[in-house]
């Protein structure tokens, strides 16, 4: 239990630092802003209670906000995404539900399952984030293009990271 807590806290810190120190400093293009830190929410254990899920999502988003001078923006998007996590997990659950002592990883549930799971949640996060940032529908398609491209890029980073870190 303590081990689990430590591991998740460590992941939290590493992901926030990775985001603000490295990824934010690489300006790929105007249309591609990957937000890799959302991986933290994806990797939380299945049994995470709802209040803890939302609280950690808020803290995660807020820590990123502090460095990006965007108070509330990432926090709201991350909380929004975390809100949908239980629902997405329910929709994607295997026939005989998630087994105990497993985590949402490629290792346990396969590439396709993890890809779908990540795609839906990352898309929700980016959609909310970019539209709140612009706060208008005036450049609807431009923003939508941004959402799509950034989602794809974040997904690529997430999938690569899964293969780099959790080898069999």
């Amino acid at each position, binding site marked *: 239990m303590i081990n689990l807590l430590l591991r998740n806290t460590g992941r939290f810190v590493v992901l926030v630092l990775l985001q603000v*120190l490295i990824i*934010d*400093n690489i*300006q790929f*293009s*105007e249309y591609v*802003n990957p937000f890799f830190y959302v991986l933290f929410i994806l990797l939380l254990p299945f049994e995470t209670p*709802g*209040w803890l899920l*939302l*609280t950690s*999502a*808020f803290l995660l*988003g*807020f820590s990123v906000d*502090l*460095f990006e*001078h*965007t*108070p*509330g*923006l990432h*926090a*709201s998007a991350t*909380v*929004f995404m975390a*809100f949908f996590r*239980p629902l997405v997990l329910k929709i994607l659950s295997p026939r005989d539900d998630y087994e105990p002592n497993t985590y949402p990883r490629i290792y346990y549930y396969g590439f396709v399952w993890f890809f779908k799971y990540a795609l839906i949640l990352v898309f929700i996060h980016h959609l909310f984030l970019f539209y*709140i*940032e*612009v*706060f208008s529908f005036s*450049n609807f398609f*431009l923003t939508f293009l941004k959402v799509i491209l950034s989602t794809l890029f974040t997904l690529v980073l997430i999938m690569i990271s899964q293969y780099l870190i959790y080898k069999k």
Partner: protein
Amino acid sequence: MKNLIRFFIRFHFAIFFIIFEFISLSLVFQYNHYQKAKGVSLVQNISGYYHSKVFSITEYLNLRETNQQLAKENVRLNNILQQAYRADDIFFYKQDDTLNKQRYYLTSAKVINNSVNKKHNFITLNKGSEHGLAQDMAVISGDGVVGVIYDVSKYYATVISLLNTNLKISAKLKKNDYFGSLVWEGKDYRHATLNEIPYHVAIERGDTIVTSSYSAIFPEGVLIGTIEDFKIKGGNFYEIIVALSTDFKHLTYVSAVSNLKKEEQKELEGTFPND
């Protein structure tokens, strides 16, 4: 009471969600009124410290470009000096006259954080209130307009970049002084849009756009860019696409301009009866 508690336990997930969204969205909206919202200066000091560390690394990577920029600036300054030498008595007389006191005072600063790919881009400078920087001062570079200071802490300042959809700048055509307002549409960091120039004015591609004298923030005549394209919008006004002269992707050294007469101008203008 029991029912109430049961209700909270049953819907705690949704309730938590609503509370967190409320907090974060109200932060976002408060921040959108960027003039009213004061930056959190503690946070600024921390992130300013971190950005200056990062900058000290990237500074080395950009040395070549910075050298070029400085060399160019040197050439420009030398040119001005030679002109001054020929027209000697214009530049070297002493002003005792109280009417002609110095109006603008420039402080140089380094850019330690910058972005061009958001809707609301901000720049962080390595100087703050300790060096005389204050809110609402103009920031310019050797190439042209950069932005307006948003908030200062002791050793750092944040600047609303011209590449921020919240910033509007009063701009005019250099050749005939017609003025309009310049905004960035949030699309591409090389271009901004100049509105409110009436349709009867003759304009051409390549005309120079500079700051107007109507804002108490920017000195008159600071270069903004040149007209790249224009079309007529809504019948009476042009929508002019301006190619910005400042390249925001490699900003290193900028100057903050304090208008020493701003208070006086604002005070006088504040007495207009209709607002």
